[in-house]
C-alpha cells in the first residue's frame, strides 16, 4: 500500500503529467528546477488544484475527488506556514481540532508529538520566535498529528540554517520510516533528495524525465540537466581533525581532505560534496596546492555538447566535468589512468550536530 498517482493537471497554459508510486515507509523525491511543476504536483496531491485526468490513490482508495480537508495527507509546506497567531502546541493541535477531536485530547497528543520531534521548542512559543529548523520540526509534528497516510514534504530544508539541516534530515528519515505511510519529498536541491530518498524522480517542464534510485541517477544521468542536478560527488563518513585546522573525512571507500569552518571532534559524522566542475584532471601527478589528489582508472566518458563528464574508479569514486576539447586533447577514454585533484576548500561540508532532539527509532505513533 502507499501512494499511487498518475495524473494530468493544468495551471493556466502549463500542464503537468506525472506518475508517482511510493510504498509505505519509503521516501520518494521529486526533484526539479523552479518552474518545473513541483508546486503544481503538491497542489494536486493536497487538493487545492483539481486534476484533469488520471487518478490519485492512497492505500488503494481514490482521493482525487475529495476536498483537501478530507484527504489523509499531512503536509510540511515550503516556508513552513505555521499559523502566526497560534502557539507551537496550538499549531500541532490544529489538524486534530479541525477534525473535531476534543480540545484536551488534541492538546495532549500535540504535546507528545512536540516532545518527540521538537523537544527544544517551548510549546507556548509563537512561530515568530523560533528558528527555521525549529519551525520545520513543529511543522513536521503538525503534519503528522492527524496520522496521515501520505506525508508531503515541500522543500522542508529551504529556510533552515545549514547547521540545523543534518539533525532535521535524520529526523525526516526517522519519521518517514516509522510513521506508517508513504513520504513524498519535493526538492530543488539534489543533496536532500539523494541522501534521503530511496527513489528519485526528476521533473522538467511538467514531465518526469528520469526515475530511479539515487545511485542509478547519479551514475547515469540522462540529460544535461540531470547531470548538473545530481552529478555532484557526495561523500558520507566520519571526520578526524588535522593539526592545521583541516580534517580528513573517512568514507567507506577512501579519504578526502576537507576544510571545516570550526573545530571538529574526531568521529563526528559529516556529509561532503564537491561539484564535478571543481575537479581537475591531469595526465601526470599534479604539482600545486590542491590537497586532494587521486590516481585512478577512467570508468566512463560521457560527452554532451561542449562538456564532458568523466567517471573515475578512484577511491573514493569521483565524477569530473571538463570540456569536450580537453577530453580530445588529453585523449581520455575508459581504461586509461589519470590524476584528479581538487582543493579542500572547494568541498562543501555539513557536520552532524550533537542534536538531542533527533528522534530515536520507533518512538513515533501515538
Amino acid at each position, binding site marked *: 500500500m502507499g501512494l499511487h498517482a498518475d495524473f494530468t493537471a493544468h495551471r493556466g497554459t502549463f500542464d503537468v503529467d506525472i506518475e508517482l508510486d511510493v510504498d509505505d515507509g519509503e521516501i520518494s523525491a521529486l526533484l526539479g528546477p523552479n518552474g518545473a511543476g513541483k508546486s503544481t504536483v503538491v497542489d494536486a496531491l*493536497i487538493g487545492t488544484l483539481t486534476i484533469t485526468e488520471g487518478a490519485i490513490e492512497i492505500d488503494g482508495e481514490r482521493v482525487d475527488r475529495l476536498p483537501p480537508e478530507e484527504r489523509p495527507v499531512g503536509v510540511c509546506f515550503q*516556508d513552513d506556514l505555521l*499559523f502566526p497567531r497560534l502557539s507551537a502546541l496550538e499549531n500541532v493541535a490544529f489538524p486534530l481540532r479541525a477534525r473535531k477531536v476534543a480540545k484536551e485530547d488534541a492538546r495532549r497528543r500535540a504535546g507528545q508529538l512536540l516532545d518527540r520531534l521538537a523537544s527544544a521548542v517551548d510549546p507556548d512559543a509563537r512561530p515568530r520566535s523560533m528558528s527555521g529548523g525549529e519551525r520545520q520540526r513543529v511543522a513536521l509534528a503538525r503534519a503528522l498529528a492527524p496520522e496521515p497516510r501520505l506525508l508531503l514534504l515541500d522543500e522542508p530544508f529551504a529556510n533552515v540554517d545549514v547547521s540545523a539541516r543534518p539533525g532535521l534530515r535524520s529526523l525526516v528519515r526517522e519519521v518517514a520510516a516509522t510513521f506508517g505511510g508513504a513520504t513524498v519529498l519535493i526538492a530543488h536541491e539534489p543533496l536532500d533528495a539523494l541522501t534521503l530518498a530511496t527513489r528519485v524522480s526528476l521533473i522538467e517542464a511538467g514531465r518526469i524525465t528520469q526515475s530511479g534510485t539515487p545511485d542509478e541517477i547519479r551514475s547515469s544521468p540522462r540529460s544535461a540537466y540531470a547531470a548538473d542536478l545530481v552529478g555532484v560527488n557526495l561523500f558520507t563518513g566520519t571526520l578526524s581533525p588535522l593539526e592545521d585546522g583541516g580534517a580528513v573525512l573517512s568514507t567507506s571507500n577512501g579519504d578526502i581532505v576537507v576544510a571545516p569552518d570550526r573545530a571538529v571532534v574526531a568521529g563526528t559524522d559529516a556529509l561532503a560534496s564537491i561539484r564535478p566542475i571543481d575537479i581537475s584532471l591531469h595526465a601526470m601527478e599534479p604539482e600545486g596546492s590542491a590537497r586532494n589528489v587521486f590516481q585512478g582508472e577512467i570508468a566512463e566518458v560521457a560527452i554532451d555538447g561542449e562538456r564532458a563528464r568523466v567517471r573515475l574508479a578512484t577511491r573514493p569514486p569521483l565524477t569530473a566535468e571538463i570540456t569536450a576539447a580537453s577530453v580530445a586533447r588529453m585523449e581520455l577514454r575508459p581504461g586509461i589512468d589519470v590524476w584528479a585533484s581538487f582543493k579542500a576548500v572547494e568541498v562543501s561540508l555539513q557536520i552532524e550536530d550533537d542534536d538531542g532532539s533527533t528522534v530515536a527509532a520507533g518512538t513515533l505513533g501515538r
Partner: protein
Amino acid sequence: MRSRTPTALWFLAIVGAVFVSLPLIALLLRAPWGDIATSLSGAGAGAALRLSIVVSLTATALSILLGVPLAWILARTRVPGRSVLRALVVLPVVLPPVVGGIGLLAALGRGGVVGRWLYDAFDVQLTFTTWGAILATTFVSMPLVVLATEAGLRSIDVRYEQAASALGATPRYAIRRIVLPMLGPQLAAGAVLAWARALGEFGATITFAGNLAGRTQTLPLAVYETRLTDPGGAIFLSLILVVISVVVLVVMRDRITQAA
C-alpha cells in the same frame, strides 16, 4: 541628517496648527462652566447621548456583520464586476451624507422603491425611527470596515488558508481559527474608525430619519438643535463628542502601532 527648515514653512505650519486647535480651545474657553450641571442634566442631553451610543454601536455591529463578508468577496474571489462592486461599496466615503440620506429616502422611505412594499406588506416604516437612524449611520460607516478589512485580507497570504484546508480544516473553520485572528488588528482599526464615523453622523440621519428627540436625535443632531436656543448647552454637548473623539484617537494610535 535633519533637513533645514525655511522660516516661511515654520510660519505656515504654525498658522495651520493654530487654525486646527483654536476651535477646540475656544470650546473650552467659551463653555459656561457655571451652568454645566443644568445644561447636561436636561433630559435632552442624556437621551441624545444614550441614543448616540445605541445607534453608533448597532451601526458598527451591522457594518462588521455585512462589511467583513463583502471585503472577503472583494479580496478573495473572482466575481465578475468586482471593481464596480468595490466602487459602489466605497462610494459613501466620498458621497455627501445628505445625498446618502436622500437616496435612502428614495429606497426605503414610505413611498420608496422598497420602502413602499415594506410598508404595504409588513406595515414596517423605517423613516423617523431609531432603526432608520441606525440604517442611515450604517450606510456611511460600513465602507470604512470594508476598506480596512479588504486591505487586511490582502496582506494575509492565501497559502495560510490553503495550509489550513490541507491540514483538515473546512473553509469556515479556517476563517474562524486562522484568518479572523490574523485579521484582528486591521478589523479592529476599521471598526473603531466606523464607530467614530457613526458617532459623528449627521447628514444622512437627519435627512432619512429626521430629528425626533429620544428616537432619532443623536448627539450631533442635538448639538445642531440646541445651538438655536441654548448655545452654552450646545458647547457642552460638543465637548462630549470631543472627549469621545480624543479617546478614540488615543486607542487607535495604540492599535495601529501594535499592528505595525
